[in-house]
């Protein structure tokens, strides 16, 4: 009986488990083009929300945890989702108006497991504060996204201007 169980497990149960794990990876490989579109959309959403002040869209596009890091071009690094949320009152103010944004030279790479992506690009983010220009032009932007519960979210991002 023990022998029967051993053979049963080795040749039926274990292969089924391994095959089901393998399928998860294979499925992702087939959808790489679509996956890159989704990643690009998530990257774009980090700025797209601002024109309509759709804060829900913004919060869905970044990781809602304490490990989230956002490096601004100024002397300020935001550690954790809650730190980033603190800027909501600024962006929500009627004095702040997002006009448009544009990403150019955007390059995205997917990890071998297809569950992480990283990117680099240049960014023009055109805004106004009390009617005066408050824009970033030609900012350098790099970042990392992770696919969590089927959605791509930015887990780390770094904005900067070249120093010379």
């Amino acid at each position: 009986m023990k022998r029967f169980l051993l053979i049963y497990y080795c040749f039926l149960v274990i292969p089924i488990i391994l095959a089901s794990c393998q399928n998860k990876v294979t499925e992702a490989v087939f959808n790489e083009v679509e996956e890159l579109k989704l990643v690009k959309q998530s990257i774009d959403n980090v700025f797209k929300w601002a024109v309509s002040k759709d804060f829900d869209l913004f919060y869905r596009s970044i990781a809602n945890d304490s490990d989230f890091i956002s490096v601004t071009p100024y002397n300020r690094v935001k550690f954790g989702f809650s730190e980033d949320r603190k800027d909501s009152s600024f962006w929500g103010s009627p004095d702040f108006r997002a006009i448009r944004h544009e990403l150019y030279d955007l390059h995205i790479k997917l990890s071998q497991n297809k569950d992480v992506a990283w990117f680099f690009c240049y960014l023009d983010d055109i805004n106004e504060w009390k009617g005066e220009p408050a824009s970033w032009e030609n900012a350098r932007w790099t970042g990392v996204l992770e696919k969590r519960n089927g959605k791509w979210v930015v887990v780390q991002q770094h904005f900067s201007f070249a120093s010379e």
Partner: protein
Amino acid sequence: MKTLRSIRLTTVLSLLLAGEIYCQPASPTDTSGNYATVKQTIEQAIGWAIEKDFEAMYNLWADDLFHFWLFSDSKVIGLEDFKKHSEVWKDPEFRGTSFAFKDLRIVFSRSGDVAWYSCFLDDCSTYKGKESCLKDVFQTGVLEKRDGRWVHVLMHGSYPVDKIPENYVRRFYSNLFETKQ
């Protein structure tokens, strides 16, 4: 009959349990021993300049790497481009002297094969006998485990535009200071 029912029940339970164990992504908190290797790979991407072992340094980078550093001409795509970018460091008058990674935070992906990090970097070197340091550079990066080896796929270093150190400005705009004096 009872035995067959027991086999069926055990199989279902085993499949559920094994599926949970083997198919579940690893915890983002690394417990596999990769942390030390990743940390060393990050440190050596700067620290290599002390020994100036170029081949060892190139092994820390992926073929499809991306790199932004402080300067506008520091955009590098791919290892071959990086090799050209690194030619300037072959000058025998140049050598790294010390470095420090402050507040280094490494996060692992849920699948465990990608890590990203942030830190403040102090990077000191000597050129023609004169030592200079880049202090508090904000550095972020991404590494991936490829063929069992952790390699940098992305690195970004910058100074905040409202806090560029004076010695850094002097280094590149010394004429401006001389004119003022």
